[in-house]
């Protein structure tokens, strides 16, 4: 797979072993700039390990790649500065207020102090949390906390946003709002790398890679993946394709 300038993420033969266990088995793929990219797989498929390598948290056993123009083996620090990461647990400090959570992220991402109040207002407005800025985060409903967590990961205006199951435990209406906002961000040129277990959400991705037992089992647009996995079933949807592709060899 060749690397081009319009790629935001590109990895080749990326491999991670833990002892003898191969978590990620020499996978290659690329994500274009401004793309909403779905990364799907069941639990234990190697999904999280791949994300952690892309975010510079762990180093690959072999292979390599570029994320936001930086080498994932040698420039982990630079990658961390150019990406935003939102985990499924929302990773907020419960005893802190939304304002204090935001200020923590601003400091850690080294955003110049002159921009702090503008960025905080931007996120609080976007997340509709102006009235809750000084309440304890613990007391906020799940949907609000999700918006705050998203806001925290956007404060430093990253090139790539990693969303690890960003809508787990959130109601369908809030999920709808969430995805509209994600689309806006992608239109603005931000690359969105998202994992999800909801196939209706995966359909909203422009391109998808499915991973099972550390190997890529399908890639392409949602339509291509459905057609490839269930060629003889015209009314098949992404759910059917997912179930078929995630079948393990040992079953």
């Amino acid at each position, binding site marked *: 797979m060749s690397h081009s300038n319009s790629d935001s993420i590109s990895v080749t033969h990326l491999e991670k072993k833990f002892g003898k266990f191969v978590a990620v088995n020499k996978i290659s793929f690329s994500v274009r700039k401004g793309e909403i990219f779905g990364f799907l797989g069941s639990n234990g498929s190697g999904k999280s390990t791949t994300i952690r390598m892309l975010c510079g*948290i762990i180093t690959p056993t072999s292979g390599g790649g570029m994320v936001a123009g930086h080498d994932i083996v040698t420039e982990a620090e630079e990658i961390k500065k150019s990406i935003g990461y939102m985990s499924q647990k929302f990773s907020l400090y419960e005893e802190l207020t939304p304002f204090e959570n935001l200020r923590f992220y601003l400091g850690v991402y080294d955003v110049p102090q002159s921009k702090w109040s503008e960025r905080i207002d931007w996120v609080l407005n976007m997340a509709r949390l102006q009235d809750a800025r000084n309440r304890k985060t613990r007391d906020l409903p799940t949907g609000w906390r999700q918006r705050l967590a998203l806001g925290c990961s956007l404060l430093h205006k990253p090139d790539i946003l990693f969303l690890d199951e960003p809508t787990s435990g959130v109601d369908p209406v809030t999920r709808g709002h969430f995805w509209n906002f994600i689309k806006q961000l992608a239109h603005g040129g931000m690359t969105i790398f998202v994992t999800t277990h909801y196939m209706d959400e995966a359909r909203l991705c422009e391109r998808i890679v499915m991973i099972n037992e550390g190997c890529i089992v399908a890639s392409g647009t949602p339509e291509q993946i459905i057609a490839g996995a269930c060629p003889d079933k015209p009314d098949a949807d992404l759910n059917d394709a997912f179930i078929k592709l995630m079948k393990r060899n040992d079953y």
Partner: protein
Amino acid sequence: MKFIRLKAVTRKEFYHLIRDYRSLYLAFAIPLLLIILFGYALSLDVDNVETVFVDYDKSELSRDFIRKLDASPYFRVSALLPASKDAVDFLDHDRAKLAIVIPPDFKKSIGADREIQLQIIIDGSDPSFGNIVRGYISAFVERYNQKMLIHFLNRQGQERIHPPVDGRVRIWFNEDMESRNFIIPGLIAVIIMIVGAILTSLIIVREYENGTMETIKSMPVQAGEFLLGKAIPYFFIGLTDLLIAVLLGQLLFGIVMKGNFGLLMVAASLYLSVALSLGILISNVTKSQMLANQMAILTTYLPSLLLSNFVFPIINMPKFLQMITLVVPARYFIDILSGIYLKNLGIAYLWPSMLVLLLMFIVLTFLNYKMLKKEGL
């Protein structure tokens, strides 16, 4: 190391500390409680020992003996009993620690220059207490004998005589031999360990339990900034506790710090840094807050209390325990602290202990840094 990131981590950690009542309780209530409890209740000194007499002689001489004993600050005569079995009863029910039976021919025997046996029974259920009482009462009887003898000889018309050797004992460093004077320095070491290690044992494992550690790892914050930033609030709490302990020691118990205050602060900062890095190491290796807390109590608080010369002298311990005390930081700090507090020693005498603490700090910090690096920070 970037100041803005360090400040962000420190500020966040400070909020955790002040908004968690358990942390505050550990940081301030426990030290206060310990000082007051240990200072007042756990006095290792023995005085006013409850004493009962059975006086079968009922002479002016036996009454004089009882009066003299009662006048001593070490004894308090609480009852004169008619029979020996009553004294046993008092000892059994813990109403007396010492019982003395004066035989019927006490005065007659002394007058006839015959040896007379005084029955003295000590409650030895607490051996160290019993030992001290034995020392007191033996010394008292010895002295009484001596006075009687001199009195007798003088009355016999001899020249005024004096005892040939007069040992003039002078106690140094802790002149009144008040165990309190030693307890305050020991308590400072224990308190700093509680604040330093038990509180900080939670600070990293908490991030893992809350799922925030994964996000921290994805951020451009570096291991050094993370370590230092997290430790700073606890460092100031530790120093505040030190000042509270020094102040309370002086106000409540009149224990005046004799040595150089600057040196005390330097030594305490060093010891506090060891405690903090020990707590952080525990936090790094454990995977639940509960386990971290128990491990911290077991590996920091208890050794500081028991293996540090504070409550039990190391010199009386079996060899293998003595070896273990070599890695107990409190042992070195108590050494420094009693040196500064009671002996007004300077750095010339204290540097070996300070060097040990410094080495401990360097090793622990290195381990912490490596572990965080390995986790992807």
